[in-house]
């Protein structure tokens, strides 16, 4: 199924409406249209990393600087970033607002995504990272704003899982 052009736009506008102008990301299919928008928007700074754990450090730098920041990654990228999440963000009380593409879940046709998709929720729970699912384009903007707000008040990583319902047409 193709990636949703409309909903990618809605997610991007939700990020901007939350007052966020700094985005770190590692490109992946579901995030592609979203990242294109971030790249084309002169008011948004997009920092593309070579591996997702780098983005945890960059997000910490943005937080220290006082600039609202969002991290975009696939769930497998989140799995690759866990030591940074635990031993930088959680250890030092640094908020992270993570939008995570939930690949390998209901409806997933590609075998290589499935293991990561199956364990993502349980890993988030094991790490005490609060998470919500984003399925409805009418609600995702509010969810992004709330995720950011909660990350700042709890000084904690927070995850909003971008589902197939939202990201594919």
């Amino acid at each position: 199924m193709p990636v949703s052009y409309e909903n990618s736009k809605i997610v991007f506008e939700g990020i901007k409406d939350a007052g966020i102008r700094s985005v770190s990301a590692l490109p992946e299919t579901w995030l592609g249209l979203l990242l294109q928008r971030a790249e084309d928007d002169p008011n948004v700074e997009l920092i593309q990393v070579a591996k997702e754990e780098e983005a945890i450090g960059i997000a910490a730098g943005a937080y220290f600087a006082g600039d609202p920041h969002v991290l975009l990654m696939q769930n497998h990228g989140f799995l690759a970033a866990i030591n940074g999440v635990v031993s930088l963000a959680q250890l030092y009380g640094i908020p992270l607002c993570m939008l995570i593409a939930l690949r390998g879940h209901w409806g997933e046709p590609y075998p290589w995504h499935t293991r990561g998709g199956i364990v993502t929720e349980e890993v988030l729970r094991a790490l005490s990272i609060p998470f919500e699912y984003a399925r409805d384009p009418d609600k995702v903007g509010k969810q992004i704003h709330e995720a950011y707000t909660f990350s700042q008040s709890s000084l904690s990583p927070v995850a909003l899982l971008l589902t197939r319902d939202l990201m594919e047409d």
Partner: protein
Amino acid sequence: MERAQCIEVIYPELEDKLVVTIMGACAQELYNLGHRENFFYLQHAMGLASSIGLGLAMHLPEERVVVLDGDGSVLMNLGTLTTLARYRPKNLIHIIFDNRSLLSTGGFDSQTTAGITDLAQIAMGAGVEHVAMVETPLQFGEAVLEAFERNDLSVIVAEVLAVGPDDYGMDLELPENAFRFKRYIRERRQA
């Protein structure tokens, strides 16, 4: 030369810079010279000091950022050199102390121990234009001053002995360090 000597040489220069160090000996040696509110010690998450430095430098173009890194930490996040090169913040100096050892985790050999892996060459290959290799405290101090004057992303690889402080300990809790570092930056921005 010893890393502690190098840090001592540049300590006066760090008074108004945002400094991010890696864990263990490097953090302790800076702390022992006198903690300042503009110092952040990353006591875990090996490899991410330079990523924090990049985030600081890109969001605070009016500040100068100095990262005190080590061979073991850089080897855990080699991709960082490519991201630094790609975004090339003018206000970031990335210092890598290469003691050719995983000193703070037991003194095991690192991939640079036998001199086979060359971190300066890796930085150059990643696309960092200004890379210096130094072996004496004088060279080190000059390289850092040149990097400040250049006003461009600079990597300095300093070959140091695998020795550290005799005692470890800081009167600073980890979140406290983060809170105070953030507050220091906010007050500078408001000034």
